[in-house]
């Protein structure tokens, strides 16, 4: 299309990246936050108590069972989630009765107070889960439309990654070249470094993201090859799940789940129980599935033990038989979600996700930097397209983080008794984003960058203080208590605020330099002309 193959691919890379760059930025940022969604939820429910660490698993299970028996009678499936590194509260969950007009009820998680054994009443919030869900389900739009938009954007992302590799024949030498502070080349190098440094991650996260909706996106091919029964059979082969039992509608008393746990503990010899799934609870068919923390990406069958909750016998499970392609498919899911990772790996995931986000941002900025000189020369000012891109860049790259901060602010500031409070948290986020997208239209662009960077710095740095003013769980309490999930949130916000402050400072410095260079050049030319005219006079 444009001369040779590489030039065509460069063209494709540029435009594919630009067209959906802002949605991709949104997906990458909210998705990256998803690696800490449990921790974010914990911060957004400050009513939850600090946790005593010396209570045994048996006792916790008893507390949960007593609560479930009282409050979830007639529900077939119970989940008991034990405190772990990521969430230090004891939680139970079940699918609630459907709201009028809906087919399925919503799955809700209840946090239990270990001391009293009763429910912890916390504020209504979408928590980290809602934020993380936005990266594949967006918001406001219907599920189907969202999936297709996300799929389209992901496909273009995959294309951008592949073309990005193709256009760099010197991909490794480029990686070690960094020409800082040289305007265009500086941004190009930043974009290259961010892309290459985590290239396997970028590819993995995009491709696996597409795999999540494989049968939705490739619906034509699927429907041409299998009918509905065959499709269900195929899914079962690809995603073998532990078989659950249905209730026989013959209520009886189950054994204490904690007594079943003793056998599990005997087999595992460790305390790393993660959660328990009870199916056909208090029924003659009752079973309890004990699951420990995932340790690798293949959903290790030894991480699960199923026990008959009436007789207390271990039910020997057929090990899940994965097909080769099933292992690849599920392996990509695991890699995408990172459920197996410990704290360190989780932070690495988080930072790599941020690198991906920054890669998209730097690409978007690069588009304008490349065209800036040419556009500024135009007599009637820069084109509409150029101005639009610049405005969307400012409003998204700096605006979206501020909007997400507003989501957290809304959590602390909206009245507790408000109706549809959780919905309004998200509304506040999107209203703020809209405002920040519009704002740059009314300001000179370099001013808009600086002001939004400063606003971001302010908003994030103030978050721990806001937390201190509105709850009793501020850094002065959480750190001595050793609640690092809670304290970690505040500290991360401070760090992000610092990073924004630093970029604002750097931005101002560079701006100052740039305008100084311009002024010097102007002065020099006027000096020269004066000298020239003097010389001319003398000659005359």
């Amino acid at each position, binding site marked *: 299309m444009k001369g040779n193959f590489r030039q065509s*691919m460069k063209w494709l890379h540029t435009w594919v990246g630009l067209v959906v760059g802002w949605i991709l930025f949104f997906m990458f940022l909210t998705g990256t936050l998803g690696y800490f969604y449990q921790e974010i939820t914990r911060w957004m429910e400050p009513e939850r108590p600090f946790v005593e660490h010396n209570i045994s698993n048996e006792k916790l299970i008893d507390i949960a069972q007593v609560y479930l028996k009282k409050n979830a009678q007639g529900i077939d499936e119970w989940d008991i989630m034990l405190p772990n590194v990521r969430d230090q509260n004891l939680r139970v969950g079940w699918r609630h009765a459907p709201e009028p007009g809906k087919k399925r009820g919503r799955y809700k998680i209840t946090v239990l107070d270990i001391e009293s054994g009763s429910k912890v009443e916390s504020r209504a919030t979408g928590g980290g889960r809602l934020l993380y869900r936005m990266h594949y389900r967006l918001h406001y739009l219907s599920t189907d439309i969202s999936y297709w938009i996300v799929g389209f954007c992901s496909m273009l992302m995959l*294309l951008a990654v592949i073309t990005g590799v193709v256009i760099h024949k010197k991909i490794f030498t480029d990686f070690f070249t960094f020409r800082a502070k040289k305007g265009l080349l500086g941004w190009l190098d930043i974009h290259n470094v961010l892309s290459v440094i985590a290239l396997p991650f970028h590819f993995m996260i995009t491709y696996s993201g597409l*795999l999540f909706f494989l049968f939705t996106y490739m619906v034509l*091919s699927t429907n041409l*090859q299998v009918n509905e029964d065959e499709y269900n059979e195929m899914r079962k*082969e690809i995603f073998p799940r532990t078989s659950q039992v249905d209730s026989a509608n013959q209520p009886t008393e189950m054994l204490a789940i904690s007594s079943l746990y003793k056998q599990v503990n005997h087999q595992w010899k460790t305390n790393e129980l993660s959660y328990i799934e009870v199916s056909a609870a208090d029924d003659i068919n009752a079973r309890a599935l004990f699951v420990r923390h995932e340790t690798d990406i293949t959903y290790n069958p030894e991480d699960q033990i199923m026990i008959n909750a009436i007789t207390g016998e271990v039910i020997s499970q057929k090990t899940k038989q994965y*097909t080769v*392609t099933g292992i690849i498919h599920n392996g990509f899911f695991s890699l995408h979600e990172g459920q197996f990772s410990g704290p360190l790996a989780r932070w690495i995931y988080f930072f790599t996700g941020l690198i991906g986000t920054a890669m998209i941002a730097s690409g978007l900025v690069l588009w304008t930097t490349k065209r800036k000189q040419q556009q500024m020369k135009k007599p009637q000012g820069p084109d509409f397209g150029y101005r639009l891109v610049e405005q969307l860049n400012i409003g998204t790259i700096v605006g979206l983080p501020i909007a997400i901060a507003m989501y957290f602010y809304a959590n602390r500031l909206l009245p507790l008794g408000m109706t549809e409070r959780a919905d309004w948290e998200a509304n506040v986020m999107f209203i703020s984003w809209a405002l920040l997208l519009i704002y740059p239209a009314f300001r000179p662009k370099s001013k808009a960058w600086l002001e939004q960077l400063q606003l971001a710095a302010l908003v994030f740095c103030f978050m721990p203080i806001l937390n201190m003013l509105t709850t009793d769980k501020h850094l002065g309490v959480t750190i001595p208590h050793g609640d690092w999930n809670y304290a970690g949130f505040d500290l991360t916000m401070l760090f992000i605020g610092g990073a924004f402050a630093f970029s604002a400072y750097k931005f101002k410095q560079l701006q100052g330099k740039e305008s100084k260079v311009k002024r010097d050049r102007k002065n020099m030319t006027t000096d020269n002309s004066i000298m020239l005219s003097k010389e001319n006079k003398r000659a005359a």
Partner: protein
Amino acid sequence: MPFFIHKFNFNNTRWHVFSRIIAAVFGGYALATSSSILLAKLLGDVVGHYQAIHIGLMLTFLTYACATMWVFSVVSAKSAWFGLLKLNAIFAVLVLLLMQFTEMSS
């Protein structure tokens, strides 16, 4: 009026780019679909029915990406369209032949 003439001028670069985009989006999707079915038919006996379909499906995104890259790399939009149509037709014929063959052998 010049605006409309400009709009319907099929020699316009914008029209060519638009034509390629349509070719990439729909032609590429068709190629991804046909290639996945062909692959499933070829591998069906080797790795099992569902697994073959699964392999074909998992590779569609890469096929799709490559097809798009190809559409934007050839000389003209016309050759992109023809190329995609040709390849799709070949795949479709091969699939039909393979289906006949398996019917005869079974």
